[in-house]
C-alpha cells in the first residue's frame, strides 16, 4: 500500500512538472490579467493586441474584454470584473476615491484640427464661430479651451459630436466646418476632398489620451504580472517607433486582425508611421511630467475639479511598476 502511495505521489509530481512546462511555454510568469478595453478591434488597437499576445507568450493568461466605451472599462475595473483598464479615469479617481492607479501612459494626446480652408484660413477667423468637439468634458473640449487661451479668441459655440469618424463624415458633408479628428480620419478627410480642408496648428502637450490603470490591490498582489505587461508594452511601443513596419510584421506573425478589410489594411502602416512621427506612442510610460500635464489638461476639460498645483501625483499614479519595467529592460538591453 505504501508503495502505491509513493508511486502515485511521484506520478502526480511528474505530471505537475510536465504541466508547468507546457503551460508557460518559453515564458516565466504564469500569472493572469483581465483587461477591459473601452474600444473595439481596429488599426489603432492593434499595437496593444500585439503587446498582449507577447504577454501571453511569456506564460501570463490574458483575458481581454472589449466594451462599448471607456466609462464601462472604468466600471469593470472598479467592480473587480477586470484587473486593468484602458482610458483616462481621472474624474473617477478624484470624484469617487475609486481604488485605481494609473501605471503607464500609452498614448499622448495629439489632436488634428481640420477646418474648411476657404471659411477658416487661420484661428483668428474662427473667433465667434462654431467649433465641433467630441463631447462635454472631453480632452477635445480641453483643447478648444487651450486654443482660446493661446490664440486670444472665443468660439461662438462649442458643439458636440461623438466619434471622430462621425465628425469626419459631417465635415465632408458640410454639416460642420471645423473639428478635431484622429490620424485615420484626418487622412480620410484629406484624401476624400483634397484641397478643401487644411490643418490648424494645435498647442503642444504631454497630456495623456490613453493610460493603463489598475485596481490598487491587484497591482500590489501581482507585481510580476504587471512587470511582464509593461515590459511588453514598452518593447512594442519602442519597436514601432523605431520601425513602424514592426506592427505589420508582428500582425502577420501573430495572425492578428486577419479579417481587416483591404481599405483599412492600407491605413495600417501610414497610421503607425504618422503616429511615431507625431510622438503619439509614449516611450517611457509617461512619468511624473505626464501626470502633471494631465492635471492641467483634465482640469481644463472639467474632469478634475482640484487645482492642478494642489493635486498629488501619488493619488492618481503608481510610478513604481513603470520604473521597474524600464530598469529590467535596460538591464536586458531591451
Amino acid at each position, binding site marked *: 500500500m505504501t508503495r502505491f502511495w509513493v508511486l502515485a505521489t511521484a506520478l502526480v509530481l511528474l505530471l505537475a512538472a510536465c504541466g508547468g512546462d507546457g503551460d508557460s511555454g518559453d515564458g516565466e510568469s504564469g500569472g493572469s490579467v483581465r483587461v477591459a478595453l473601452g474600444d473595439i478591434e481596429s488599426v489603432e488597437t492593434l499595437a496593444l493586441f500585439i503587446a498582449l499576445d507577447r504577454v501571453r507568450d511569456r506564460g501570463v493568461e490574458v483575458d481581454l474584454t472589449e466594451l462599448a466605451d471607456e466609462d464601462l472599462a472604468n466600471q469593470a475595473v472598479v467592480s473587480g470584473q477586470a484587473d486593468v483598464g484602458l482610458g483616462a479615469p481621472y474624474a473617477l479617481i478624484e470624484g469617487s476615491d475609486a481604488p485605481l492607479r494609473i501605471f503607464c501612459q500609452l498614448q499622448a494626446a495629439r489632436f488634428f484640427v481640420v477646418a474648411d480652408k476657404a471659411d477658416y484660413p487661420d484661428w483668428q477667423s474662427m473667433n465667434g464661430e462654431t467649433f465641433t468637439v467630441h463631447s462635454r468634458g472631453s480632452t477635445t473640449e480641453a483643447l478648444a479651451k487651450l486654443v482660446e487661451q493661446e490664440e486670444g479668441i472665443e468660439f461662438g459655440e462649442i458643439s*458636440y459630436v461623438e466619434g471622430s469618424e462621425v465628425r469626419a463624415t459631417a465635415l465632408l458633408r458640410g454639416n460642420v466646418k471645423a473639428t478635431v479628428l484622429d490620424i485615420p480620419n484626418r487622412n480620410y478627410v484629406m484624401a476624400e476632398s483634397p484641397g478643401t480642408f487644411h490643418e490648424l496648428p494645435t498647442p503642444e502637450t504631454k497630456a495623456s489620451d490613453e493610460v493603463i490603470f489598475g485596481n490598487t490591490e491587484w497591482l500590489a498582489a501581482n507585481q510580476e504580472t504587471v512587470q511582464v505587461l509593461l515590459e511588453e508594452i514598452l518593447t512594442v511601443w519602442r519597436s514601432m517607433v523605431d520601425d513602424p513596419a514592426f506592427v505589420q510584421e508582428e500582425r502577420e506573425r501573430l495572425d492578428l486582425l486577419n479579417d481587416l478589410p483591404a481599405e483599412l489594411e492600407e491605413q495600417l502602416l501610414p497610421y503607425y508611421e504618422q503616429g511615431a512621427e507625431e510622438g503619439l506612442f509614449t516611450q517611457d510610460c509617461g512619468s511624473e511630467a505626464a501626470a502633471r500635464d494631465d492635471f492641467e489638461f483634465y482640469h481644463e476639460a472639467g474632469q478634475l475639479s482640484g487645482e492642478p498645483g494642489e493635486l498629488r501625483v501619488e493619488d492618481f499614479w503608481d510610478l513604481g511598476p513603470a520604473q521597474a519595467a524600464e530598469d529590467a529592460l535596460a538591464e536586458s538591453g531591451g
Partner: protein
Amino acid sequence: MTGLIQVRGGRTVAKAVDRPWLLRAASIALVLGLWEWGGTIPVSIAFPKFSETLAAFAGMITDGTFAGAYAETAGPLIVGVSLTAVGGVLAGLVMGLSSRTEWLGLPVFIVLQASPSAAIIPLITFIYGIGFTAKVFAVVLLSAPVIVLNSYRGIANTPRSLLEMGDAFLAGRFKRIVKIVIPAGSGLIFAGLRLGLAQGFTGAVLAELLITPTGVGDLITFYRSVADYPRMFASILSIILVASVSVTLLQRLEQRLFRPEMRPA
C-alpha cells in the same frame, strides 16, 4: 399601516383597496428605501444613495440644468410626435378603411414595432446626418408604429351595428367616416397618441445618447464621464418622472374625454 398588516379583518383589507394611493406610496417607499440601503452598502462606487440623488436633483432644478436640457430635448420631440400624430393617424385611418392598404402597410409597422430600436437609431445618421432632422426621425421611428397600429385597430374595429345604422340613414362614405368611424375609434386613437408620446420621448433620449449628446441625454453622458454619479442618477430619475407624469396626465385626460366603452381595454 395597521390596517395593512391585519389582513385577516375583511374591513381593513377593503380599506387598503379603497385607498390605492396608500399601496402605491408603500411601493414607492419600499423601492426608495432599498435604493438608499443599496447606496449605503454600497452596491458599487458608481451607485449613489437615494438621498444624494435627491439632493443632486434639487440642485439641478434650482440651477436651471434641467430646464435648459429639457428645452433642448423638447424640440425634436414636439416636432417628431406632431408629425407622427398627423401622419400616423391618417395612415391608420387609410389602413383601417382599405384592405389593400392594410396589406401593404400593416407588416411594415408590425416589424418596426418588434425591431430593436436602439440598433436602428445609429443607422439614421447615414441618411439624415447628425443634426435636428436625425433626432426628429428617431422620434418618428419609435412613435409611429404604436400610433399607426392603434389608429388602425380603432378604425378597423368600428362596431358593425353603428355602420349598419349609418347605412339605414343612407349616410355617404365621407359622413360614415367623419360621423361614425372616427368617433368610434377615437378612444384607441388617443391611447395610441399617449403611448406614441412615451415612445417618442424614448426615441429623443436614445438619439441624444447615440447620435449627438444634447439635452437630457448629454446630462447622462457628461455626468458619467466626470464621475458625478448623483447627478447622473438624478438625470435618469428625471426622465422616469417626466415620462410617468406626462403619461399619467394623458391617461387621466383620456378617461375624462372618452366614454368607458370607447376606452381601450
